């Protein structure tokens, strides 16, 4: 078991290292961050451009730039921004919390709902409530998240207008300035959280509950379930230990694999609801051609994905002894 964890971690570090090289090269070769400066009218003196190149390290060969960048990472330095006054590290730290709140709440709720709905659907195939849930998930799978986000935002505004009170907050992660006191702050956060999380939940609930339904249906048809029924076990015991438990394994992998999609979804949702989170940071950085900022963002995303996959592997081992004992 310990050996397996170590092996997984080493492999995760390997993937992360490789990912850092790939994204560094992709970003370094895809365009000149100083293009705007060079094209500026009236022309900027060459000495200024040269100084800027030096500050960003553009005058060095690619591999040295990479090594400098990685070296900086270990000292907590994410590299210089194209905007001299911007501190990439500080700004990212500010924004991670906001996005994390959105993503974590959405994942937890979506996963719980998907497990329940998928299990019920799988156990009662082609009967109520599966007859309702299955078409519902199909429609949800087809809903583009940005469209849903705009829709919910507009409906939220409309609802607020109708009741004459701002029940749903549709701009930002918190009111500005945030209310004083713990309870009012919490309520304020919740009001801001409802609509954006709903978008993320719906998108992922649908996909995950489909997977869970299939896993349950397959587990249910397994010989070991038939054997358990023939042993005379109660319905509850059969469902819990013989149907659901072996069927938890696939969903773990699926959720871990979906994390990049979740982050992409968060980018869109944050944009629509004007949250100052990671999504906004990415889009701003792209517009500013701030290569190092995009790099930092991608690195954090890759790190999150790798960590989640590691957690998935561990959960896998807990649920399935065949993995635990390295078979």
């Amino acid at each position, binding site marked *: 078991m310990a050996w397996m964890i170590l092996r997984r971690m080493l492999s995760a570090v390997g*993937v992360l290292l*490789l*990912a850092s090289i790939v*994204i560094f090269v*992709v*970003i370094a070769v*895809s365009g000149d961050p100083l293009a705007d400066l060079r094209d500026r009218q009236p022309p900027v003196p060459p000495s200024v451009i040269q100084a800027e190149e030096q500050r960003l390290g553009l005058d060095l060969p690619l591999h040295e730039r990479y090594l400098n960048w990685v070296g900086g990472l270990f000292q907590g330095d994410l590299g210089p921004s194209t905007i001299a006054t911007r501190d990439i590290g500080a700004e990212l730290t500010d924004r991670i919390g906001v996005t994390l709140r959105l993503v974590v709440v959405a994942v937890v709720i979506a996963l719980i709902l998907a497990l329940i709905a998928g299990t019920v659907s799988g156990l009662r195939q082609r009967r109520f409530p599966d007859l309702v849930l299955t078409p519902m998930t*199909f*429609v949800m*799978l*087809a*809903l*583009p*998240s*940005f*469209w849903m986000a*705009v*829709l919910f935002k507009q409906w939220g505004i*409309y609802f607020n207008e109708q009741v004459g009170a701002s029940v749903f907050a549709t701009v930002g992660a918190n009111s500005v300035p945030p209310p004083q006191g713990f309870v009012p702050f919490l309520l304020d956060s919740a009001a801001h959280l409802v609509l954006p999380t709903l978008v993320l939940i719906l998108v992922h609930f649908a996909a995950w509950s489909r997977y869970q339904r299939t896993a349950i249906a397959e587990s*249910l*048809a397994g*010989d*070991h379930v*038939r*054997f*358990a*029924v*023939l*042993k*005379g*076990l109660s*319905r509850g*015991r*059969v469902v819990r*230990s*013989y149907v659901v*438990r*072996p069927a938890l394994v696939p969903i773990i992998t699926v959720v871990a694999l979906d994390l*990049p*999609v979740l*982050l*992409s979804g968060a*980018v*869109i949702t944050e944009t629509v609801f004007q949250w100052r989170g990671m999504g906004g940071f*990415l889009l701003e950085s*792209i*517009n500013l*051609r701030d290569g190092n900022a*995009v790099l930092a*963002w*991608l690195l954090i*995303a*890759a790190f999150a*994905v*790798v960590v989640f*996959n590691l957690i998935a592997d561990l959960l896998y081992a807990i649920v399935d*002894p*065949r993995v635990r*004992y390295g*078979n």
Partner: protein
Amino acid sequence: MATDTVPTDEPATGGNGRGRVILRRFRRHKLGVAGLAVLVLLALVAVVVPLVWPYGHGEITPDLSQPPSAAHPMGTDTLGRDLFAQTLRGLQQSLLIATTVTVVACLIGVTLGVIAGYFGRFVDAAVMRLVDLTLTLPTIAIAAFLGSVVPTGGVNWLALSLVLGVLMWTPVSRLVRGIVLSLRSLPFVDAARVMGAGNLQIMTRHLIPNVADHIIVAATLLFGTAILAESGLSFLGFGVQPPDTSLGLLVSNAQSAVLTRPWLFYFPGLLIVVIVLAVNYAGEGLRDAANPKAALANPLRTARRRRDADTPPDDTPRGVLDVRGLTVDFGDQRVVKGVDLHIDDGEVLALVGESGSGKSVTALSVVGLLPPDAVGGGSVRFDGRELTGLNFSQWREYRGRRIAVILQDPSTTLNPVLTIATQFKDSMRLAGPLPADHRDRIVALLDGVAIKDPARLLDSYPHQLSGGMRQRIAIALAMVHDPDLIIADEPTTALDVTVQAQVMSTLALARERTGAAMLFITHDLSLVAGIADQVAVMRAGEVVEHADVDTVFYRPRHEYTRSLLALAPSLALAPASRSAAADIEEDS
């Protein structure tokens, strides 16, 4: 099975027979057909209507900011462009990009997937790392960044498609790799290799054609994802750039107009929904057609019964199990045609038949676990009481406690995620709370099936044990409550012959100890010679001979029984087997 015939004088080319079968099955999937129809319709609209529509999508008309009218059904924007033409253009662009993305992703995914699955080892490891790597990159972020750096007025559709395709091939390659991995160990690939076929020949002639239908299904689902990815990207401003447009861009432009001109927002959005929904249903239909699964079994449900079979026979039942006029129908096909069987207390009845004889379905009806698409009829009485028509909780009074079952494949019958002890405890709890000495009980039960050093096994999981060991554990599980009837369904078929001998001896011993009656189902007549009291021979859904064991083996009445006996290849071995067994007895 399949009944279609291919004209024989036609020179045989490739495998289109299967394609036709899939198509026929697909046509029965109504939602799938509807989805495909919608897609074709939308594609036609996207191609044809712009040709005849009077306004181009970029054409600036003198009518600025018009409400909908006959000339402009969706109105015009602030520059005077016809919004209906714009929507058509958006549809066109979105479909074009999604198609290209799908083609690119499938090309990459299939190539890498086939190579990884076929060569395995480090090639596979390398490709899978590449998949991991691609998966760590959120598509939208990379695509947005690459889109933003392309000079001169943003990306064209081809560049956008290539970028998305390069980021979206991983699900295809995972799927293809998995299938190829299982295909490459199949004998037809080995056969080609023995004939001298090279790697490339095997991959192109045997592997790719055999994953083709999976690829089509994956491509369909990918198409839906591609539409969503493209429109999401365009919505953020990093996809299709003005003056050109796409569905995502149209939604983005209409954001502020949701309340004033709602159709501009709803129409492109709903178009996306309809496309993806249609694609997903079409994909689902194709998947079901390519890999038809029989209605999956659900042992928590009880099977349907024919109405006319509800009156049990009024005579007094004989023995511990009395089966009268048992029938099972799948659709309009009757696979068990009025079977009568009976077992007296403590007696062993062997039910022998070849594949398709209906013996397993008979066994399933006796324990109330017919598949959901089967309809049963007739009467099954256990200890005088009718079993057919019982519901789940009524069945529980019999299952495990009075009727125990041993199934064929010991590698799948035990729960893979519970320890051996837990699986025993589950059974023991049927008779009330666990006794304090339950572990000793389990050890005694395992000892009873000749397992050496049983205490060591209690905390193991099934996958840590050999097949023969697992089957003996299944036998011990059947003995927990000293049942009156044991039903053993081909319990040794998956085992080696020496292991089979051990399991058979164990079973015989355990049965004698409890004095239970047994219904033993097998395809191998020789196997039951030593254990059976009565033998019933089944063929094509009927019992052709039902007599005591000596009659069946020495004076068979039915011709089929005689031929089974004559064909049993082990007859020549009889003297050898007898003397070998005698030797072993002397040794021990």
